[in-house]
């Protein structure tokens, strides 16, 4: 833990813990609803990686553009989207944040979240374009783009990094390195496993941070964002993290040892923050219990909202192919 936490006040601390807990419990409930077949298709859980989305979002403003991957429930929640609208989306109901058209992988909400993008690395160059637009429009916002280390092996990653650097576009590239591209480990997919070194080839400043530590991520993101806002140049932030659950609900996890997962669970970002805050006497056991209760109620409310949701009439099937 760095120095910055000393300044962390109680309210902020509780908020960080609340957000991570909300993501955790929301996704546990999603998995349950998946086994009950209320949620279908692909469901990619973020459990274990919560500190990244929650930490990075602290550094952003409402005016910044945020683009995420198909493992984006955490980003949507940390961006302040309504849990009910997200759950309804996963149910496929028209009250969902994308009217049920997208499902788990395609969460959208107005200016809060530009997806939910399920072609690996496909959204990186879009983020560059959005940042380019901001530059042309002389706005002071930036585009923040989350992606996994799998995406960093795509040509699109290299094209996007080069374009952002060439154009000096205000993009925060956040690599959520969870060490597995689906089931293939980092050492089998990258010739250079210290991913942050890839920034140098484009003259992009980089930093690697412990992605299991929400305070460290928050601090790193804050520094990165300040640099982007003062220089207008892109920044590449690598958050080393770990996915505790399977890649998706279809994954038998043949590619990693249970002992490895257990080892990483010792670094679980939620107990880590909780214990740290209790040790610092910023929060009490009672605070934690109250947070759990609040989260439980919020998740139940989301499920109730989704259950009560309605199906879009089939007559509207071809809506939104073109603007009306």
């Amino acid at each position, binding site marked *: 833990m760095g120095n910055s936490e000393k300044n962390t006040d109680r309210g902020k601390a509780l908020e960080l813990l609340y957000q991570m807990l909300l993501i955790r419990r929301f996704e546990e409930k999603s998995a349950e609803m998946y086994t009950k077949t209320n949620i279908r298709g692909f469901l990619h859980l973020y459990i274990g990686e919560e500190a990244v989305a929650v930490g990075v979002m602290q550094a952003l403003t409402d005016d910044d553009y945020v683009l995420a991957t198909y493992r984006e429930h955490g980003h949507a929640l940390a961006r302040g989207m309504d849990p009910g609208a997200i759950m309804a989306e996963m149910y496929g109901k028209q009250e969902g944040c*994308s009217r049920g058209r997208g499902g788990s992988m395609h969460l*959208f909400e107005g200016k809060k979240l530009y997806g939910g*993008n399920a072609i690996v690395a*496909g*959204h990186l*160059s879009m983020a560059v374009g959005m940042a380019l637009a901001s530059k042309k429009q002389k706005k002071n916002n930036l585009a923040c783009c989350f992606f996994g280390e799998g995406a960093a092996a795509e040509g699109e990653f290299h094209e996007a990094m080069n374009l952002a650097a060439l154009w000096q576009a205000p993009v925060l590239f956040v690599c959520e390195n969870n060490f597995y591209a689906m089931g293939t480990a980092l050492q089998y997919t990258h010739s250079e496993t210290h991913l942050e070194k890839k920034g140098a080839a484009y003259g992009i400043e980089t930093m690697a941070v412990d992605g299991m530590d929400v305070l460290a991520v928050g601090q790193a993101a804050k520094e990165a964002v300040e640099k982007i806002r003062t220089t207008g140049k892109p920044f590449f932030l690598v958050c080393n993290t770990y996915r505790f659950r399977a890649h998706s609900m279809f994954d038998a996890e043949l590619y990693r040892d249970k002992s490895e997962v257990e080892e990483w669970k010792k670094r679980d970002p939620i107990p880590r923050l909780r214990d740290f805050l209790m040790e610092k006497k910023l929060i009490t056991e009672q605070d934690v219990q109250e947070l759990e209760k609040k989260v439980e109620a919020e998740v139940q409310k989301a499920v109730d909202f989704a259950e009560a949701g309605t199906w879009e009439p089939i007559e509207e099937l071809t809506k*939104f192919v*073109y603007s009306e």
Partner: protein
Amino acid sequence: MADNKTIKITYREALKQAIREALLGDERVFLMGEDVGRYGGAFAVSKGLLQEFGPDRIMDVPLSESGFTGAGIGAALAGMRPIVEVMTVNFSLLAMDQIVNNAATLLHMSGGQLNVPVVIRMGCGIGRQLAAQHSHSWEPLYAHIPGLIVLSVGTHEDARGMLLSALKSPDPVVIFEYTYMLNMEAEIPAGAGAVDISKAKVRREGKDISIITYGAGVYKSLEAATELAASGIEAEVVDLRVLRPLDETTFLASVGKTHRALVVEEAWRSVGLAAEVSARITEKAFYELDAPVQRLCGVEVPIPYPKHLEDASVPQRGDIVRAVKKMIKP
């Protein structure tokens, strides 16, 4: 009448004037593409525009088709009106993921929240002896994709007007331009500008047969119709122009009048636009037909380099004349 005044213009100049008018008329518009600036455009379409508008609005980009097309989509999402130039359709496959998976899907996938008003222009066509990797007619590939508006610039009038209308669209537009026509001159109205981009157009009226075509087939079909007129056959030429969404009303009406249809396209025969047009005529105007619908399409071969083989790969004026005469027995 002053309105009837025309000017002589090349296809290239018509394209350029449209880009220039768009840049002058809307500060959100910018052009991005390989060699569009300092080089003056691979086909000299944007020559001089960098000097006039500066590097922020005429942006040279690296050879990163997917990257800069994606950036164009992103800029469109964020309120700009980018014109993305993909040098030729051949390279557009490298950008196809962006066009198909992002531009075409975002509106629907977001439940109507995100519009992608990007315009993507590509040079295309056959006839300059550029061999198999630089001579493609992939209009049907893009016309297959719901969410895209696909335009084919078969005439000088459309070269002058289609881009301006495309930039007004809230949805992504792909425009096919035909590089072998760049130096061709034609007369267009002096005040030519934006054109309709929702309808096919009858380019020549006739009563004996409908030749339904697009792109490079338009002038060839018009020339064939002139030749046929000398033999007493009055062919109607329908330029599809908008390949998606297809305007069937116009060509079905034409078939209702002529009772015969020949569909002409340079793209490969199987699973092409001619197949689609033919199917719709069969479904909706079958009892209007005095003869089976016929197709003249590209031969299904990677386009070869030598001129005589290249010419034999796609329908020529003579092929159209012969096909029509075969369909109309004296």
